[in-house]
C-alpha cells in the first residue's frame, strides 16, 4: 500500500495496460489483457461470468484456463462500455463462453459487447449493442448506434450500421491504416500526449467517422432498393431472445 505513488487517473501496469481507477472490472482473475490496452472510467467487464471448469479441476487448472474475457494488444475501451461473455445452454447446462477481442479493437462509449469473437483492427462506435455470439472478423467498422443481432457474422472489411445492423459498405482500399490504435493509446493515461497532428496516415477520429459515414450514405443509396434498407423493412425481424441460451 505504501508503495502506491501519486494517484493518477489510471493504473498503468508493467505490460502497458492503462486501467482507469473508476473502471468496473468484476472477476479480474478471469480477464486477460494483452498489454497496451486502455480501459477508461466506468467501463465494465464481467469477468465473473466465466465458465466454471469441471468441478474437480477448478483448483488444479492452469490460471487463465477459464478466461471469461480475453483482450489483445492496443485495445481501447471507452467510457461506459460493457463487455460481457455470452451465455447459452450447452450440453444441458447453462454456461458462459469466453469473449475474445483481437488487437487494436476500439469500443466506443456506452457500447455493450456480448460477442463471441471480435477480430483485430475492429472499430466499434458509441452506443452500439453487439448481440450474443456475434462474430466480427478483422477490419470491421461498426458505426454508432448499430444493433448487431445475436449470432450475426460480420465479414472482414465491412462497414455495418442500423437497427438491426447489416453491412452497409466496405472499408475502402488503404483505409485499414486508420484502424491502428497505437497513437490513440499514447493520448490517454497519467501523462497523456497529444495526438500528433496529421500526416495522412494518422487521421484523427473525427475525420474518420465523417469519412466513413459519408461512404456509408453512398452505399445505402446504392443498395437501398435491393436491401430494403430505406423503406424500413428489415430482414431480421427479431432477436431470438432465447436462442442464445438454448441452441
Amino acid at each position, binding site marked *: *500500500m505504501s508503495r502506491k505513488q501519486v494517484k493518477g487517473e489510471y*493504473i498503468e*501496469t*508493467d*505490460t502497458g*495496460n492503462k*486501467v482507469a481507477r473508476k473502471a*468496473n*472490472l*468484476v*472477476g*479480474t*482473475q478471469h*480477464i*486477460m*489483457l*494483452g*498489454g497496451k490496452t486502455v480501459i477508461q472510467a466506468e467501463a*465494465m*467487464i*464481467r*469477468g*465473473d*461470468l*466465466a*465458465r*466454471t471448469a469441471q*468441478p474437480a479441476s477448478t483448483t488444479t487448472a492452469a490460471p*487463465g484456463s477459464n478466461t471469461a474475457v480475453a483482450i489483445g494488444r492496443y485495445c481501447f475501451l471507452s467510457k461506459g462500455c*460493457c463487455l*460481457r461473455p455470452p*451465455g447459452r*445452454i450447452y450440453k*444441458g*447446462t*447453462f*454456461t*458462459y463462453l469466453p469473449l475474445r477481442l483481437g488487437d487494436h479493437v476500439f469500443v466506443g462509449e456506452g457500447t*455493450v459487447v456480448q460477442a463471441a469473437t471480435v477480430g483485430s483492427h475492429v472499430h466499434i462506435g458509441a452506443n452500439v*449493442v453487439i*448481440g450474443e455470439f456475434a462474430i466480427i472478423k478483422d477490419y470491421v467498422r461498426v458505426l454508432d*448506434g448499430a*444493433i448487431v443481432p445475436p449470432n*450475426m457474422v460480420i465479414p472482414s472489411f465491412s462497414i455495418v450500421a442500423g*437497427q*438491426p445492423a447489416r453491412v452497409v459498405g466496405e472499408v475502402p482500399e488503404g483505409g485499414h491504416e486508420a484502424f491502428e490504435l497505437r497513437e490513440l493509446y499514447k493520448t490517454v493515461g497519467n501523462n497523456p500526449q497529444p495526438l500528433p497532428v496529421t500526416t495522412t496516415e494518422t487521421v484523427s477520429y473525427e475525420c474518420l467517422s465523417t469519412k466513413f459515414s459519408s461512404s456509408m450514405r453512398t452505399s445505402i443509396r446504392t443498395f437501398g432498393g435491393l436491401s430494403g434498407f430505406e423503406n*424500413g423493412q*428489415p*430482414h*431480421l*425481424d*427479431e*432477436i*431470438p*431472445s*432465447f*436462442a442464445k*441460451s*438454448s*441452441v
Partner: protein
Amino acid sequence: MASSSSKRQSVLPRTPAGPKAPVNFSSSITIADSAQLTGHHTINISSESVVHPRAKLDSAKGRITIGRRCIVHERTSIGAASADPTPSESRDGVFISDYATVEVGAVIESGGTIIGEGCLVGVGSRVGKGAKIGKHCILTPKSVIPPGEEVPDFTVVYSNGTRRMDKRGVTDLKNKAQARQIEGPDGNGSMVYVGQAVGKVARPGGVAVVPTIPLPEALYLRCLKERLFSRNYIR
C-alpha cells in the same frame, strides 16, 4: 498479463449511500453486493431471481416488485424517475412478473409500470412510466416504450418501434431455459446466493451456493433445441 497489478483485488466499490430501501427478499435469490437498493418503499424480490452488479433499484417513487426467476442484468435502472410529472394512480412503482429478463442498461421508469411474465427487455431499452407490457413480449435492444403505453401479449418490438406478434408458442421452453440459466453452476457469475442471510450479502468472489433443484427437463430442452434449429430466425 493480468488485468491489473496483483496489488489490486477485484473489489467493487461499496454502494453509494442513499436512503436504504426496506427489502423483502426471498431466501433463494442471488444478488450482487454492488447492486444499489435505494428509496423508502419496499423492494420485493421473489424466489430464485438474480440481480447483477450495478443494477439500480430505486423505490423512491413506489414499491418495486420482482417476480420469481427474473434476471436483472447490470446497470439497469428499475424505478427510475420519469420526465413526466403527472402523478400516477398506482401505488406500485414497478411490477416485474415472473420469468422476466431485464438486460444490460435498460431503464424501467417508476409509476405503475408493469412488465409481464416472461418478457425480455433488451439492452438499453427504456420503458416509460405506467407502461404495461403484456406477457412474453420481447423488446429488442434500444427499444423505447412511451409512458402509459399498453403493449399486448406476445408482442415483439424491434427495429426502432416496429411491432409484430410472436407466434412461436415456445413460452414454456423459454421459461425452462431461464430456469436453467439461473440454476446452472455458472449462470450467475461470482454472485452469491443469499440463502438465509437476508440483507447481509456476501462479496463477489465468494463461493456461489446455488440451490440444486433436480431438473427432469432434459427432454424438453432437446425439443427446444430442435425447434430452434428448424426455424430460421435470421433471415
